[in-house]
């Protein structure tokens, strides 16, 4: 009986997450990230007169640098709290997960802290990326003969 009351009380007092607002913000911020990347690509290919592929690489490296820098300065956590998936899914979120793991374990030393824990959060992306890419690549190679 008391357990039941407690459960309803908790349910009533939990902050209600506005899913519509979350979705809209994630869509908008995520879209802005895409536009920013495209802007940087156009800017680099115009400024340095390089091919689009090289400019895209430059733009992604810039976004990764920004993600690391803002995480180090402490802004990115607040931004992720606001935008959620809008900043987790783009490549800056990948940089954020690496940088925050590195910062968190920094006090344990250079090797056992930074070196061992850098991929603590981002490692799962690389593992499943490589495994699935190998599987689908092998399948493609066998079916279409390379």
């Amino acid at each position, binding site marked *: 009986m008391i357990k039941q009351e407690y459960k309803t009380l908790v349910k009533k007092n939990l902050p209600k997450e506005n*899913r519509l607002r*979350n*979705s809209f913000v*994630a*869509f908008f911020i*995520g*879209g802005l*990230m*895409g*536009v920013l*990347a*495209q*802007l940087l*690509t156009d800017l680099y290919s115009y400024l340095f007169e390089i091919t*689009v592929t090289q400019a*895209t*690489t430059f*733009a*992604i*490296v810039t*976004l990764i640098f920004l993600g*690391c*820098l803002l995480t180090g*300065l*402490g802004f990115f*956590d607040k931004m992720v709290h606001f935008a*959620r*998936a809008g900043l*987790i*899914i*783009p*490549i800056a*979120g990948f*940089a954020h997960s*690496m*940088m925050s793991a*590195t*910062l*968190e374990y*920094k*006090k344990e030393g250079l090797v056992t802290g*930074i070196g061992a824990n*850098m991929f603590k959060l*981002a490692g799962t*992306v690389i*593992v*499943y*990326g*490589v495994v*699935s*890419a*190998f*599987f*689908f*690549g*092998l*399948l*493609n*190679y066998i079916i279409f003969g*390379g």
Partner: protein
Amino acid sequence: MVYFYAFLFCGLVCLIGQLILDNTKLTPGHVTSLFVVVGALLEFFSIYDKILIYAGAGASVPITSFGHSLCHAALLRAKEEGIMGLFMGMFDLTCSGITAAIVFSFFLSLIFKPKS
């Protein structure tokens, strides 16, 4: 026009991620892993290359493009060098991103102190 498609595609991927986060108990780690696998799957059906033509950099920013690049690079190398190319070429396209993330987060973590 490419800006509009970049906004639309990148926004839609983030929207799907947010919907999964809100309506299931999966963590952001699960969602990013799932999206990487989806990217590799889209590459298997050669869909992602078509999206890249329309959305440009907007399609190479979400984490799905990571799975696409891994699979694409491995297949390109496999066409040249046979089955061993899958092992040799896996990181050909994504090495810049991974290297940048490692180098920047190493040096910046030496400078900054953890907040909180």
